[in-house]
Each structure stands twice: as structure tokens, then as C-alpha cells.
């Protein structure tokens, strides 16, 4: 019905002033593009500024008005920064923590989510509600008792306090994956069960492969969270050689007279892995937000 009327209207419009209408649409689109470019450029400005500063000699950094394209280009800020803080070492440390945490968070969360999604055990409803309520309670409450616990078992200044809790799964990820698993049709596993697969095999051979988009999504979230985390390493790590990039960067600015060129170079290099992961996994990112069903 609506369509019929719309078509009629369109016809009328077409006869009356097709050209005018088209021009109006075109101007509207042009205006939108203009707005978006303007906003986008101002969003990107700090990034340009960062790149520009990272390639400037010290003298050039403190020049007014600022030059956007440095001359000469001070590439040496990058290797210099990598020496000022043991960049490669911190990069490696951060990678180890991030990857191990990611494996734990993704795999264990999936395992637990599978348990909640596919088994009807006594106490299931209560435990799931409990899981949801833990999302609501800020982690700061357990911050100090957990710190004291790690101290009592002499594991301060190791990566264990940073990594091990990930192997208990993350409540948010469990919730998200449980929703996802619930949409997988039961027939799939029934035929596998007839073929003699046990529950774990079904999880491993059917649920994990089928949920790849969801797993990649939470993998990206986990990566982003661990890579950018400051508070954890700040609390648990004391020895310089064990620091992560975030911690190294924050020390960089307090230890030395601020060398903005080097500092921006180091910051930029710290961002790059997250940027790469984001660009590679971008598709999954938006998909994942759709899947979490924030609407309810």
C-alpha cells in the first residue's frame, strides 16, 4: 500500500520537477560529505600531530607557528625511542601477557558458555544470574584483597597475577557467547552424538568452529583490553625488565626530561598492533556489537 502511494508520488514528482529534486538530493549528499570530512579531519588532527611530532628534531618541535611537515625528517626518533625505553623487550613482554590472557579468556569463556547454554544441571539458573551480577560489581572491590593474596603466595612481580585470572573466563564474554551458542540449532549436535561424540568433542568439533566470528570478536576485545591495560602491570610489576609497553611509556614521561619527538614515536609504535588487529578484524567488530544484542 505504502509502496503504491510512494510510486505514485515519485511519478508525480518526476513529471513535475525531476531535475530539481535530483539536484536537491545531490546538494544534500554533498553537505553530508562535507560535514563528515570536516568532523573526520578534526578527529584525525591529533593523530597527524602525533606523526608529525614524532618526525621532528627537538628544535623544530618548539617552533611557532608549528610546521606540519618536518624538514629535515628526523627518522632517528624511532630508533632513539627504542633505546630510551627497552622497547623490543617491553613489546615482547606485552605480547606474552596479551596472548596468554587472550587464549585463556576466549577458550575458557567459550567452555563455560557452552556449559550454560547446553546443559540443564541443578542450580544452573541461579549460577547464571550470579554470573550476571558479577558483571555489575566493579573490580576495584577485589583489587586489594586479590593483591594481598598474590603477595602472600609470593607472586608479585611475576606475570601470574596478570594472566591466571583470565583462565577463569570473563563474565561478559561468557554471557555474550552463551547468547551466541543458544542460537546454534540442536540438530547439529544430535547427529554428532549418534556418531559417538562426547560432549567435549561436540564443543571442540562443532561449537568452536561454528562460532568463529564470535570468538574472533571477543579475541579482539580481549587483545585490546590487555594491550592497553595500565593498572594491572602498574600494581603487580616492579622490575624494569618485566614492564609492559604501557608501563614503560608511563615511566618514559616521568623519568626523563620529556622528549616529545621520541615520546610520540614510542606511543605511535605502541598503538600499531592494536591498529593492525582493528583493521584486520574490523568486520567482526561491528558484527560482534550486533550480536551482543545491547538492545535488550
Amino acid at each position: 500500500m505504502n509502496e503504491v502511494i510512494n510510486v505514485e508520488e515519485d511519478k508525480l514528482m518526476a513529471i513535475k520537477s525531476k531535475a530539481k529534486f535530483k539536484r536537491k538530493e545531490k546538494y544534500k549528499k554533498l553537505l553530508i560529505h562535507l560535514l563528515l570530512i570536516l568532523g573526520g579531519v578534526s578527529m584525525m588532527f591529533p593523530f597527524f600531530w602525533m606523526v608529525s611530532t614524532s618526525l621532528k628534531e627537538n628544535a623544530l618541535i618548539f617552533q611557532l607557528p608549528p610546521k606540519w611537515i618536518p624538514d629535515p625528517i628526523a627518522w632517528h626518533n624511532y630508533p632513539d625511542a627504542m633505546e630510551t625505553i627497552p622497547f623490543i623487550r617491553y613489546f615482547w613482554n606485552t605480547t606474552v601477557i596479551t596472548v596468554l590472557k587472550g587464549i585463556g579468556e576466549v577458550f575458557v569463556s567459550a567452555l563455560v558458555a557452552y556449559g550454560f547454554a547446553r546443559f540443564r544441571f541443578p542450580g544452573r539458573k541461579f549460577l547464571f544470574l550470579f554470573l550476571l551480577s558479577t558483571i555489575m560489581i566493579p573490580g576495584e572491590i577485589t583489587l586489594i584483597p586479590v593483591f594481598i593474596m598474590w603477595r602472600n603466595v609470593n607472586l608479585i612481580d611475576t606475570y601470574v597475577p596478570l594472566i591466571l585470572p583470565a583462565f577463569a573466563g570473563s563474565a561478559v564474554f561468557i554471557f555474550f557467547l552463551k547468547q551466541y551458542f543458544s542460537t546454534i540449532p540442536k540438530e547439529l549436535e544430535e547427529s554428532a552424538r549418534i556418531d559417538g561424540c562426547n560432549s567435549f568433542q561436540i564443543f571442540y568439533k562443532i561449537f568452536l568452529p561454528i562460532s568463529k566470528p564470535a570468538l574472533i570478536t571477543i579475541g579482539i576485545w580481549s587483545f585490546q583490553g590487555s594491550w592497553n591495560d595500565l593498572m594491572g602491570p602498574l600494581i603487580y610489576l616492579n622490575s624494569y625488565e618485566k614492564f609492559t609497553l604501557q608501563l614503560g611509556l608511563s615511566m618514559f614521561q616521568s623519568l626523563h626530561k620529556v622528549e616529545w619527538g621520541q615520546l610520540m614515536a614510542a606511543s605511535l609504535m605502541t598503538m600499531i598492533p592494536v591498529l593492525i588487529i582493528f583493521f584486520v578484524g574490523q568486520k567482526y567488530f561491528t558484527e560482534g556489537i550486533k550480536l551482543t544484542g545491547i538492545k535488550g
Partner: protein
Amino acid sequence: MNKQQLRKIYKKYEGYLFIMPWILGILIFFLWPVGYAVYISFTKWPILGSPKWVGLDNYITIFNDEQFYNSLSVTFKFALFAIPLGILTSFTIAFILNSNIRGLSFYRTIYYLPAVVSGVAVALLWRWVLDPEFGLINSLLAMIGIQGPGWLSDPDWVIPSYILVSIWGAGGGMITYLVGLKDVPKNLYESAEIDGAGFFAKLFKITIPMMTPILFYNLIMGIIGSFRKFTDAYILGGAGNQGKFYLVYLYENAFKYFKMGYATALAWILFIIILILTLLVFKTSSFWVYYESGEE
């Protein structure tokens, strides 16, 4: 007990096998620490030695602690402006992006980028952008003859600085609106147009009501986020105590002054504040959050 019975029992409890890591995690990293945190908050404990029971002393001290009120007011002031402005910005961007134009995914990436690269690197970037003398903003202002403020070094400008930084990262919320906008049934607009509804009528009568569940979600996240703001507040600081957000104050008490009992009491108050604010928002939600029939 015969084999069949055993199998039956196993079947009944099999789910526990899968959720076991989470249950263990909850016991070790949640239930026990939460209980312990209640106790610690009633003690004086400079981390060395054993905790000394002081009853309600910590809580009484907190309510007479000027620094506590300061960090609370910094956090509240920030939240009061940053949350609405952030929602407005991210919604506006999403609204413009939702039109049928070319290069949509390109724009989306650009606007989302700042939300991806959080952490110390971004905080350092902003410290440099907001540098009173040679920073990007003030040198641009100087070019058009305006003397920019001291931003992070001027007590009056610290909170506006933080608001600016948080708006820059508003792209995270944008994605949620973008997903929501795509879900608004097209026929709603079509029938509204037939009834003669203009741009604003459609926006306020259809789009915004349909977006209220997402607004609600972002509002809650914004409140929690303000009280848990740490990394950029820790790096950026701010003139005097004007940049001392709640969590930074808590961190300092725990790991700089080693007042474990006091810091834990602060954590409980943080929890209660978040709880009250969230409940308030939930209570009002029936007046302004619109749920499609069938959902909830």
C-alpha cells in the same frame, strides 16, 4: 548403585564439568576477596604486619576527608558534562552516517579509530596536544590571535580538557547507535511521511524513541566509566587536585600510601555510588526507555 544410575547422575551434573573453571575463579578471585574486602575495610593495615581492627574508623575518616570530596566532585563534574555531550556527539555522528552515501565504511573507521587506541599512548598524545605553549590546540589558536588557556595546568580548564578528550573517543558509542539505527523499521518512516511528518517530527517521534534502549545502555556505561576512569587520569593528572578522579585517589591510597583498609573502604563507597546511580537510572527507565512489544 548400578551403572545406569551412575550414568544418569553423570548426565545430570555434566554441565558442571564445563563451568568448573568459572566456579573456581569465582571462589578464588571473587567470593573470597569480596568477603575479605569487607573485613579489610574495617581495619588499619599499612600492608606490612597484620591488619588492626578499627571498626568504622575508615568510613568516618572518609566522610571528613577533603580529598575524598574533591575526587568525588571532579568525577561528578566530569560525568555531568562528558556523558550527555558524548551521547549527543556519538548519536549525531551515527545519525549523519546512517544516510545512504558512498564511503560509509571509511568514515565509520575514522570516527571509530580514537576509541580503539586507548591506553597510555593516547593519554600522552593528549598531554602533548594540550601543551599550553607548543601544543596543537594552543598553537592553532595562536595563529588566529587567541591566547589559549593552560588546559591541564589551569584548575578551571582541567575538567573541560578531560571532557574534550572523552568526546574525541565518542566513536565507541557511535557504533552502537549505528547498529540501532539500521534496525528501525523503514515502514515507520514511510507511514510518517504519508502523514506529513517532517525531518524533526521523524527524528523526535520515531528515531529517538527507538534509540532509547541504546541511550539507556550508553548512559549506564558512561556512569560506570566515569567512576572507573584511570589510565588517562593517571597520566594526564591536572593542576593541583583538579584531575584527581575517584579511582586515581583510591589507587594512591592503596599503592602509594599503602593504606589498604582505607582504600578498600573507598572501593566499597565507589560500589555503593555506582549502585545507587544505576538503580536511579533503571527506576526512571520506564518513563523514557521504549521497548518494542515482544522484547522485555
